[in-house]
């Protein structure tokens, strides 16, 4: 029944999905935190930049961004991100696109977390003379991060599902393999079920595990 699977690297494709998710998650956590810091900071120009970035990026389809990294950045402008093999270039471009897109959502999640930190915390920090970067680093962000584990989990799950878009620029992840298998094999329902199951295996445990973590670390108020 499953002999049509021969010759296809199913696990390898899902491994690429996991790698895409991991690197993009890492990148967007860093860039998203920086954006959030800019958006709540005292410098008007940085606030404006953060707001503009989030507004624009959230309203562009991820597919447009990913296809742009390949057609625009690589094929037109010749930016290859320091890689020389096509597969590596496309992978890095996809991570870049996913990071640029996802960090806007990380930023918004963090900002809502910053708003849950009680005013008294910040007022006390200001009263003992901490500067803005110190307040953010020592007082606000640690509490904000603990309260946004839940929302960030949602972003992570959305990111896992969004990695399928990398198929549009030929990254050999699960969705691309699924399209190839559907074209070559006559087992449409079975193939689709296998891939659906694969994604459920990736998304549901993430939600359950991090959901539990979210309850554990949340600041009780």
């Amino acid at each position: 029944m499953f002999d049509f699977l021969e010759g296809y690297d199913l696990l390898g494709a899902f491994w690429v999905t996991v790698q895409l998710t991991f690197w993009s998650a890492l990148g967007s956590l860093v860039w998203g935190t920086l954006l959030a810091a800019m958006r709540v900071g005292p410098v008007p120009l940085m606030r404006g930049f953060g707001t503009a970035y989030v507004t624009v990026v959230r309203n562009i389809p991820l597919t447009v961004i990913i296809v742009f990294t390949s057609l625009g950045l690589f094929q037109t402008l010749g930016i290859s991100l320091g890689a020389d093999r096509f597969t590596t270039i496309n992978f890095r471009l996809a991570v870049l696109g996913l990071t640029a897109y996802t960090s806007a959502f990380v930023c918004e999640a963090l900002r809502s977390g910053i708003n849950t930190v009680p005013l008294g915390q910040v007022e006390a920090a200001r009263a003992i003379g901490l500067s803005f970067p110190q307040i953010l680093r020592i007082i606000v962000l640690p509490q904000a991060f603990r309260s946004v584990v839940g929302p960030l989990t949602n972003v992570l799950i959305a990111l896992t599902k969004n990695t399928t878009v990398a198929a549009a620029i030929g990254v050999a992840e699960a969705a691309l393999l699924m399209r190839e298998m559907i074209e070559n094999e006559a087992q449409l329902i079975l193939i689709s079920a296998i891939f659906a199951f694969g994604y459920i295996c990736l998304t549901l445990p993430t939600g359950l595990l991090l959901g539990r973590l979210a309850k554990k670390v949340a600041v009780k108020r």
Partner: protein
Amino acid sequence: MRRTGSGRAAKRRTDRDEAPTVLYDVPGPRARRRNLLWTLLFLAALAAVVWWVIAGLGAKNQLEAEKWEPFLTDGRVWQTYLLPALKNTVIAAALAMLLALPLGALLGIARLSDHRAVRAGAGTVVEFFRAIPVLILMLFANAAYAEFTDISPETRPLYAVVTGLVLYNASVLAEVVRAGILALPAGQTDAAKAIGMRKGQTMAYVLLPQSVTAMLPALISQLVVIVKDTALGGAMLGFAELLASVRPMSANYGANTIACFTVVAVLFVLLNLALTTFAARLERRLRRGKRSTGAVVTAEAVDDLATPGEPPAPKP
């Protein structure tokens, strides 16, 4: 007296859309100088990036006027490529929303059923379709239509895109509907029971009509997600929407890839901004409104509702 006044001011400052200015003091002379320094540094960094981009674009001849001009002076670009593509995007998004809404309402109500089997069935469907990527659903729908139906290959991408979007968004909207109904004050159900309404009547005449108002902002914000996801069909299924118009357009107007992408991105942003602005305005009106219960499922709540896993706890 003063305390309540300042308390209220502080409360207003932490509202969602405004920067929480309480994170830093009102700048004095030194802070102003420091902010100015940071502004200048950031401006320099921005300028460096912009210069690098422009130099890069110039080196690849992407800034020539003839590559950008057609979008302003030549009506044919719009008539041949952009407007038909935009029309397809809007048609697919509108169809998906119209079909997903009743399906989602049905699933959402089923999840609130008193019968465990109905609840579990609807729950499984909702969790399943929220857990898998839309693209997988689209690819499946595309292949399934090719194999089991005789829909012509020209219209098949539209069918596939709409099917994928409906399956996914119906399950998200099911959660929106459920949240909308749960957000209503319990007194509504009690009152309906008190005047002798049956369960179905309570749902049809009391809960559902009110929850529709409450969830309008969330619905519109989901429409933004739908609009964005139509681009998947353009990249993977050959559906002739905005993103898919980039290739033929740049081939016809002298390889102006960057210009084409810019225009397409701007169109998407404008379309979605119009939707989000409308949703935000509606949300504010609903919160202020005296005729409604004041219950509202916000645009932001959709992010949580679109995630598989345990349902968000109903608000007390």
